[in-house]
């Protein structure tokens, strides 16, 4: 299945079929999620209305980790099996993951000021999330730092794999260290510990963010395939131009 769609032409055909579904699911679930998050859910007994920041913050943080894990998996596939699309998928994921990480950091800051009394604190969870953001930036910079795109892709893939060690550190940072950030309340042993009126918008937004990622991923992989094909075409045109100009002058006298 993965091998079958590793062919760019087949992938593009599949992407054209799936994209409208991803679009509809994204718009649908985020719209309903926004309705429940902003109107049809009660304020928290401790956080008050600021709990509404969580409906953006928590899914964004989940997506930051999900995108990084996908990027590392695609990078591993590209290094081990040399799948032609795996590397493009990793490249396409990086900016989306960086956006979600930034969103998580920014909204966390907006929540921290009224609730903790500070925009930022150098504790384990916040610092490891900031490191994740820099890993995304580093991945993108390294990918474009070489004249030979294949060398850039390989170096960036190695960075993505090495940086993956940060993902479990982020996940368990709230358990391993004494931090200001509260521990997990949805993905934990014994099931979620939040009220269903708040769990519903949270899960709707999380689902919406996930299909949004797939939707944008289809577009970005398409763009990356185009860039790849443009490069190949240009190389071929230069090669044929230089190889044809010589014989044509040689053969003209005949």
């Amino acid at each position, binding site marked *: 299945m993965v091998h079958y769609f590793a062919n760019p032409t087949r992938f593009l055909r599949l992407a054209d079929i799936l994209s409208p579904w991803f679009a509809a699911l994204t718009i649908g679930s985020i719209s309903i999620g*926004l309705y429940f998050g*902003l109107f049809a859910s009660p*304020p928290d007994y401790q956080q*008050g*209305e*600021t709990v*509404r*920041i969580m409906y*953006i*913050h928590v899914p*964004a943080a989940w997506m930051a980790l999900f995108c990084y894990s996908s990027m590392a998996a695609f990078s591993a596939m590209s290094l081990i099996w040399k799948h032609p699309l795996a590397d493009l998928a990793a490249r396409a994921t990086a*900016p*989306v993951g960086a*956006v979600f990480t*930034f*969103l998580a950091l*920014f*909204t966390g800051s*907006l*929540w921290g*000021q*009224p609730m903790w009394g500070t925009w930022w604190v150098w504790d384990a969870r916040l610092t490891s999330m900031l490191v994740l953001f820099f890993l995304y930036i580093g991945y993108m910079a390294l990918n474009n730092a070489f004249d030979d795109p294949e060398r850039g892709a390989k170096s960036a893939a190695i960075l993505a794999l090495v940086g993956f060690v940060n993902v479990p550190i982020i996940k368990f940072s709230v358990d391993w260290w004494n931090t200001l950030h509260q521990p997990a309340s949805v993905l934990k042993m014994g099931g979620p510990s939040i009220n269903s009126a708040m769990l519903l918008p949270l899960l709707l937004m999380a689902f919406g963010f996930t299909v*949004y990622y797939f*939707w*944008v991923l289809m*577009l*970005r992989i*398409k*763009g990356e395939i*185009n*860039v790849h*094909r*443009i490069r190949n*075409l*240009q190389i*071929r*045109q230069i090669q*044929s*131009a230089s*190889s*044809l100009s*010589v*014989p044509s002058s040689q053969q003209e006298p005949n």
Partner: protein
Amino acid sequence: MNAINDYLAMGGYALYIWPTYIVFAVLLLGTFFHSRHFAKSTEARLMALKKVPTNRPRDSDAKNKGPINET
């Protein structure tokens, strides 16, 4: 009118909640439009490159002439 103002005030946390939703909307819409533009502009460039009458060696040429510049 008061109900709307009360709602927008968000229990005194309007300054923290609305920026969250604005930044969320701007970032997700911006990323989407950027990605769509990336896919479309590269597609257009690829099509333009394909249309250029290239002096690409045709397969028949390559077969007939063999390696060029070898004597």
